[in-house]
């Protein structure tokens, strides 16, 4: 934390927030979704998540020991990355797969770019996309003991009717942590109450998603009704992405206006990918694409210095 030595003049606000406290709160907030995933898919889900977390933490530790850098595993950011990646995998994957994804997420996306705070992309999502491109068959095999066949979103895309109530509760197939909208929103409430995130990004993301998904579904000649929208909102990784990944401190815009723009853009991309894309899901790619645009968004939404704005006379 040598960069923090430059301090501006007083008055200073003291706060108990530390990186590890925030990351622990996020981990805690993800527990409802994790617990529901284990309840929904069985103990193997716990194993997949555990392998993912262990690989993420070990990779960070080994990299820092090998490069003789300060060991930062105590800040729990690797735990959050591993946990998020694990929650984004189907339960049926072989156990080496979460390990490979975590190694990629931590080593390539985070550590090689300078560690926490310097990664330009959400490591967990980048890890998931790496796996999705490398092993499409394994990553989209959602058949397990509890559920068979396609995910509700894939059914929705194919025009098969789905049970929106089941999707909101989470009794459906899918990745480990994404199925239950209730559990994820409960976790998100913890984050919001703890002041870790606010509703700017998730709110604008979800609103813009609803608007664009209605528009695009209408354009592609579907009937859009309440259950359809509810299913689109509850299905896939949208909730997990909106509350836990799009709000990642490192890869979201820092300006307030920029956060609305970012949310709007993510909603547009997700709707575009879901309705017109080849796959039923589009949250992961939408968010990492959004991550890449963050510097641009920040450049154009940076507030003017006091005295520099306004019209010149």
């Amino acid at each position, binding site marked *: 934390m040598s960069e923090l030595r430059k301090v501006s003049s007083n008055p200073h606000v003291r706060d108990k927030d530390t990186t590890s406290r925030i990351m622990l709160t996020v981990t805690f907030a993800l527990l409802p979704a994790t617990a529901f995933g284990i309840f929904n898919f069985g103990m193997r889900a716990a194993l997949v998540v555990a392998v993912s977390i262990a690989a993420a933490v070990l990779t960070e530790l080994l990299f820092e020991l090998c490069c003789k850098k300060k060991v930062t595993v105590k800040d729990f950011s690797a735990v959050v990355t591993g946990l998020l990646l694990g929650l984004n995998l189907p339960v049926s994957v*072989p156990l080496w797969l979460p390990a*490979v994804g975590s190694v990629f997420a931590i080593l*390539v996306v985070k550590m090689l770019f300078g560690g926490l705070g310097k990664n330009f992309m959400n490591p967990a999502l980048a890890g998931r996309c*790496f796996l999705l*491109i*490398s*092993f*499409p068959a*394994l990553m989209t095999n959602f058949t397990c003991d509890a559920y068979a066949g396609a995910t509700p979103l894939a059914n929705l895309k194919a025009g098969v009717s789905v049970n929106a109530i089941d999707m909101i509760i989470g009794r459906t197939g899918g990745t480990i942590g994404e199925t239950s909208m209730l559990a994820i929103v409960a976790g998100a409430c913890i984050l919001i109450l703890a002041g870790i995130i606010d509703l700017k990004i998730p709110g604008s993301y979800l609103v813009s998603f609803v608007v664009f998904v209605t528009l695009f579904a209408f354009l592609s000649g579907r009937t859009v009704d309440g259950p359809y929208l509810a299913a689109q909102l509850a299905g896939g990784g949208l909730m997990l992405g909106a509350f836990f990944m799009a709000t990642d401190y490192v890869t979201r815009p820092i300006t307030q206006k920029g956060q609305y723009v970012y949310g709007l853009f993510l909603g547009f991309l997700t709707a575009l990918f879901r309705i017109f894309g080849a796959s039923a899901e589009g949250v992961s790619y939408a968010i990492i694409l959004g991550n890449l645009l963050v510097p641009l968004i920040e450049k154009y939404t940076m507030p003017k210095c006091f005295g520099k704005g306004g019209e010149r006379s």
Partner: protein
Amino acid sequence: MENKNTVWERLFNGIVKENPTFVLTLGMCPTLAVTTSAINGLGMGLSTTVVLALSNLMISLLQKIIPDKVRIPAFIVIIASFVTVIQLLLQGYVPDLYASLGIYIPLIVVNCIILGRAEAYASKHPPILSLFDGIGMGLGFSLALTCIGAVRELLGAGEVFGQRVMPAGYVPFSIFIMAPGAFFVLAALTAIQNKVKMIGEKKGRDMSKIQSGCGHDCLSCNQASSCRDREAVLAKEKNGQGEEA
């Protein structure tokens, strides 16, 4: 600097010291696009080597005749002629390789290594040295492309030169034979070769032989921006711009 211009020095310079891919990072388009397998990388590298050697030789022979003002179009015409020859030969004798390299064969014309060597070396040096400069650079390029292709093929398909290497249970990382894999492998191999040079330097060995030293060749120098002789570089650039204008 004493024996800078000998045949062996030129070969060594091209393959190790100023390896066009890992040190100069030139010719990235074919490097990233065709290295999906070791054989493609080797084929691309050798085709480029032939064009590079012949065009260097020809340009060096014609250096007194080509007027300075139209030298770039003249170089392009010479290079394009050789590329056409290579293209027809590949199409005739190795149609499989020709099919898998596709558009990247005609694109050898605009490979910046070839134009770079013509401009930076062949148009100012004697023919035999230019020929070997081209061969050295081409072999360096071939070596790099074959390495990248082999690693990508190994990870992305479990094979090297079409031979199964990985055990039967290996699930290939198909991302490595797609575009992102090219960037990962190129970056990793470049990092490894830099690390090897650094270790050598730390042990106190004389690395000037394999360290890309300043050949007063700022055009093809990737370290021009952080150069110790920065002022000289800037002055040279300024002069260059003056000539252009």
